[in-house]
């Protein structure tokens, strides 16, 4: 017997829409028009839709990373740094191996990104397994530190002498993922979440290792005393989470910006956490959650462009939404848990 239950996220999403509409009504001289640009306009042309879909792909990958580590009882707050590391590793790979054919080169770039992100998270994971270092802190600190180093690399040793922007040399044409929705950056990478999400869902629910991972997450002391190898389950999920973030970073590079621009992560790491929260930390919820978040992001961008909504106000709306989602979803969870 399956009972229909309203997902925890739905009332929160409704609240979010209400609040953003309220802010727009308060501050915009033509609220109707602004609202139009904020919501339906996203589907009005190929550029807007494609950008939204591209963000959705990236967010579903980082969200998956968060869900996976969370199920194992780890918190990955280092998403930003891992995405950034993934991107810069891909830049380095492209510099070191300029002569590969495109069909081989792109996977190599992506693999470099995966490795970079994984390595960064692995450090936090192994620290947790060996010395019980709090992963929440160590992922965050590592990521913040590494981000500054990458900022330096982009503005210093790797910077493009021909550009006035803080950026690395653009990727050669053959290392770029072709757009499927010109002029938007939406590209073939949409297949990745379609493959990876079911794969991880299956892993978590239909394999012994998946179950052991979740037992470790729900009661690490029980897992320890009943002889599960908790060291592995404290290290690997976090590492894979970092790998997924690194993958997203490499995809941003090869699919969206084609060059290592400073700050190219544009909140992918943090927003991945929001997406995971909206999805209720369940893999099947990730795609709709990523869609919602990508839509809001894209909508605010368009509204800023076309209406009298200021850039700051757009950012404020996004910030309010983020706050609402993270606090409200958590609260509903806690109440249900009781």
């Amino acid at each position, binding site marked *: 017997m399956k009972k229909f239950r309203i997902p925890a996220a739905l009332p929160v999403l409704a609240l979010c829409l209400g609040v953003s509409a309220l802010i727009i009504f308060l501050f915009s001289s033509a609220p109707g028009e602004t609202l139009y640009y904020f919501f339906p306009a996203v589907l009005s042309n190929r550029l807007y839709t494609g950008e939204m879909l591209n963000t959705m792909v990236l967010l579903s990958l980082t969200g998956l990373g968060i869900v996976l580590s969370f199920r194992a009882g780890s918190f990955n707050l280092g998403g930003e740094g891992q995405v950034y590391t993934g991107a810069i590793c891909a830049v380095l790979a492209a510099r070191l191996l300029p002569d590969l054919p495109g069909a081989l080169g792109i996977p190599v770039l992506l693999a470099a990104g995966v490795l970079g992100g994984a390595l960064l998270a692995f450090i936090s994971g192994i620290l947790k397994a060996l010395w019980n270092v709090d992963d929440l802190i160590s992922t965050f600190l590592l990521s913040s530190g590494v981000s500054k180093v990458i900022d330096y690399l982009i503005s210093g040793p790797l910077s493009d002498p021909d550009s006035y922007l803080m950026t690395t040399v653009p990727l050669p044409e053959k290392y770029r993922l072709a757009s499927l929705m010109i002029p938007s950056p939406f590209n073939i990478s949409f297949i990745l979440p379609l493959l990876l999400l079911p794969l991880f869902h299956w892993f978590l*629910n*239909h*394999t*012994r290792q*998946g*179950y*052991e991972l*979740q*037992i470790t997450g*729900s*009661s690490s*002391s*029980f*897992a*320890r*005393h*009943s*002889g*599960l*190898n*908790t*060291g592995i389950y404290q290290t690997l999920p976090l590492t894979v989470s970092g790998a997924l973030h690194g993958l997203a970073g490499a995809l941003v590079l090869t699919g969206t910006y084609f060059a290592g621009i400073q700050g190219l992560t544009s909140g992918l790491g943090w927003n991945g956490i929001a997406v995971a929260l909206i999805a209720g930390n369940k893999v099947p919820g990730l795609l709709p959650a990523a869609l919602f978040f990508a839509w809001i992001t894209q909508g605010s961008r368009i509204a800023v462009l076309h209406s009298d909504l200021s850039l700051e106000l757009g950012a404020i709306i996004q910030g309010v939404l983020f706050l609402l989602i993270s606090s409200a979803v958590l609260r509903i969870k806690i109440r249900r848990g009781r």
Partner: protein
Amino acid sequence: MSDNSKIVLELKNVTQIFAESGVRACHDISMQVQGSEILAVMGENGAGKSTLMFLISGFMEPGRGEILCRGGKNPADLRALVGMVHQKPLLAGDLSVLENIILGPEKGLFRKDVLKEEIAAVQERYNLPLDLHLKAKQLTAPQIQRCELIRALWKNKELLILDEPTASLSTTQSEELFELLLRLKGEGKTVIFISHKIHEVMKVADRIAVIRRGELQGIDAKGNLSPREISRLMIGEDTLPGEEPAAEKRGEIDRTGVPVLELSNLGYSETGTRRLDSINLSLYPGEILGMGGIRENGLTHVEDILCGLEQPDTGFILLNGKNRMPLTPLKLRRSGISYIPADRLKRGAAPESTLAENLSVLKRQAGFGSYRKRLFSWAGQFISDHAIKGEAKQKVKTLSGGNIQKMIVARELENNPPLLIVSEPSWGLDFKSRDRLHSQLVQAREEGIAILLLTTDLDELLSLSDRICVLTEGRLTEIERTEEQWNRYYIGEKMTGADRA
């Protein structure tokens, strides 16, 4: 009883039941505390002593009944009257001793140097030297206690409560503390102290109250109680029905081979206090070795060390004759050893996970295809085979305590381990489940499993064990199987230290 004017505090039918766990910590307790006396509160672990003290000090409010103080029942009056020295350190670790002492809502603006002089004067007066600039987290257990004591004296509390003050003190330190208590009594202060060591209670207390399973068993002047009587009040007279010594029904145990478990010269200290002192024991296949004692007298440390959570300071643990140091929970399990922990909901089970997931750690679900399908069909079978009342998909936290223990025991015995470490197996079980559990343990022994039974339950200890040893203040004493020693009174007196009073 003396005249009413001397009564500082009066408890009337105080009952406290914790809603979350349903534990009845105090039941219908009525007593009076008089001015300038030393009242000792005694009882086994979990008897409700600490809860009672929390109620008296105004930390908690009683569920039913009332606590009268200065003729009223205002908890603020209580807090003003009572200074408590806790058993578990309750200091702010990053603040200095001085800051911890002056911490409190009473003062508005203050001058630290003036307060410091005041406190130094208190220290001088009562001879309690302690560096006020040390960080609280650097303190050892006796120093923490001293810090709390200085605070209570400086705030000029009339009623001092000390929760197991001697648990972490050496003999000389205890002597000094008792001298101080007697002096405070001379100055008109009232002292309540909790202890389960009869000999020290007989030395300093004026009156003694004994609590058992949340109920007040008796309160009387020291002169009217003998150590033996106190010991009996503490452990209770009632032998549970339907229990007979199972151990005598069998022949000799072969103790010539290699022991399954051997502890050699094990020692353990915690915050500067010796908790275990050169523990030696050997355990052979097919026997139950019962280790009795009071939880704080080292039994928890033995459990933590044997399950690999803590590392001993000295000595070795040998499994099947091989040195397995440093022991970790994973290593223990890889050696095939089973462990039924006292803390069932943390170590023994994952309450938020399903019954099937809790059983999955046995790794019995071979085959291909979806693990979920295999696991749930296997677990359903296992659950019905072992008559556990629950379903594979049910969360463990929704099960009754007895059923959770049933699940844990069935799981731990399933793999036919060479060694089983059991701690407090019958805590919170009713008679029927208790009997069932005991016969399971005896059955396991008949199959050649070596069992180490850690328990504070005397009846359980006597009815199951082939050999008994008792842990008192970190030392192990073996009980001889003689008429004189092999009974609950002798062991009870050994456990509580009544024999040394």
